[in-house]
Structures are given as C-alpha cells and as structure tokens.
C-alpha cells in the first residue's frame, strides 16, 4: 500500500474513515454551538478558507508548476489538488460560455460517507469547508473566486457538484487576515 519514500515531504497516511468521522464530529459540534444553519455554513466556509490559504503553499511546493495561463488550467490544478489531498477524482464540467465558471462533479463524497442530514438541518452545506478551501487557496495566487455547492448527495441529488466562478484577478497583494 505505501509508496517508496521518494517524496520530499513525508506523507503520514491517515485512515479515510478516521478523517470522515473527525470532520463529522467537528460539524456536529459547530451545529450545536451555533443557532442558525446559515451561521454554521459560514463558519465551515471560513474554516475552509483558513485551510486553503495555507495548503496552497504545500500544493505549489509539491507540484512545482508555474503560473496558470487561463482559468481552465486553474481548474485542472484544483482537480489535481483534490486527488492529491483527498484522493477524490472529480470531473471538470459545465464550463460557462465565457470560460469563467466550471463545475467539479463528484460521484461520491468520502468526507460525508456515513452522514444523513436530519430534517431540521436540511439547508446545511455539510462539505462547505471544501468551498472555503478553494476560495482561500486561489486568493493566495491572486484569483478571486466564489465557490458553492450546486448539487449535494446528502440532499438527495445523484451527484455532488461544486461550482466555481471566477470573479476577478486580485492586483493588490495584501491578503485578508484570519477572522
């Protein structure tokens, strides 16, 4: 199962189930702490943002690729990051006419593997941390995007679809601090 140690950084493998359960416990706790589902969604997105701004450095160090020429290359890099960090293989689809929006479609969502949303949390965006991570990571490379879930397995849809929309290139280099 383990690959030969030729990587620059050591990869401590963690069981996928442990990760899913940890994330689940986190979401359940946040749900208990906050009153409204909207607040929970915002918190998850914020947490994801903080993950994203840090993980981008690691990603660029490992992949050693240069700048992206256009948004399509960016999409490919995001796709590669999912494979690298979460061993998920989304497909990139549904490009908008202006090539400024795309979708990442996941057949299954491993971090939500055992989850069943209770009725009173029907609006909960359980995997919102992923949206935040994408937003945070791309902001550090001066691309401002919005990311949200268009479809979600947990809500009864057949697939989970994460939509990413390009907003603008960030020229000023002051990154937003941690909230």
């Amino acid at each position, binding site marked *: 199962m383990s690959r030969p140690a030729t990587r620059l950084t050591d990869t401590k493998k963690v069981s996928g189930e442990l990760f899913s359960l940890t994330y*689940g416990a986190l979401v359940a706790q946040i749900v208990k702490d906050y009153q409204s589902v909207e607040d929970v969604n915002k918190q998850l997105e914020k947490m994801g943002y903080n993950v994203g701004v840090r993980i981008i450095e690691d990603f660029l160090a490992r992949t050693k690729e240069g700048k992206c020429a256009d948004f399509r290359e960016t999409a490919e890099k995001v796709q590669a990051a999912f494979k690298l960090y979460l061993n998920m293989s989304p497909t990139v689809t549904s490009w908008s006419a202006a090539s400024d929006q795309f979708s990442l479609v996941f057949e299954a969502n491993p971090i939500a593997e*055992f*989850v*069943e949303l209770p009725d009173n949390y029907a609006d909960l965006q359980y995997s919102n941390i992923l949206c935040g991570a994408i937003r945070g990571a791309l902001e550090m490379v001066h691309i401002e995007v919005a990311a949200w879930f268009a479809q979600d397995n947990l809500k009864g849809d057949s697939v989970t679809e994460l939509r990413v929309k390009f907003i603008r290139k960030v020229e000023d280099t002051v990154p937003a601090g941690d909230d």
Partner: protein
Amino acid sequence: QAYNCLIHFYKRDFVMSGTYYFVIVGHNDNPLFEVEFSSSGREVRKDDHRHLNQFIAHAALDLVDEHMLRTPNMYLKIVDKFNEWFVSAFVTASRQRFIMLHDLKNEDGIKSFFSEMYETYIKQVMNPFYSINTPIKSVHFEKKAQFYGRKFLTG
C-alpha cells in the same frame, strides 16, 4: 380424535402466522427502534400488541444480560418464553440489545436478520448527527429494517 387435532393445528397456524416484533434496547433500557412484521396478509394493529410486546421484551432484559456474560457469541438464540412468544436476543459490541419476539421458531432467519440489522446499526452510529442511545428516526434505517424483515422473516 386425529381429525380434531388436525383442525386445532390449522387453527393454530391461522392465528399465529409468523408475527415478529423487533426492538433495539439502549443502555438505559429505553427502546431505540421498534418494528413489527407479520407474514399473514392482515394488518397488524400496532396499538393492540405494542404494550404487551414492550412488556415481554423488557421482562427478558435481565435474562439477556445474564446470557450475555456467559457467552462470547453475539447471537444469544432464544433466551425466554412468554405464553406463545419466544424471545431471541443479539448483543452488539457496544452492548446494545436487539430483542426479537416471535411465535415461530426461525433461527436462521432471525440470525440473518440480526446480522444485517447490526450492519445497518453500525452505519447509523457513524452518522455524526446521531447520538447513541437516542431513538433512531432515520428513514433509511426503517427501509432497511422493512427490507430485511421481508427477506428473512416473513418472506
């Protein structure tokens, strides 16, 4: 005489035609999940029998606990009998007790049903929004119970 016996046998079968009552009992002796199956066509009126079933199941808990300590097996087979009802039990790794009241012996079916419900229960427990020892209200869980009940118990 033989004719009378035959009539009695048929009547018996008609009255008790494979009815099952399944309950998951939590650590506080509270029911977490209940469901009934009946292989006869008629509807089983839950209210009529529910109190009696709960009583029988509850009364059997002490025996289940005794058996549990004496064997490494999860499936405890028949632990008690009340009038025409047999009480079978299955204990999970976390000491949740699955109780089955039944009027026909169906060891293989009941054992398979318990095993499948155990898998389903494990999945339920992995849900971060479900707290252990609380009633199970998941539609998915109920569907699985119905499915396995038809498959292994009532046919």
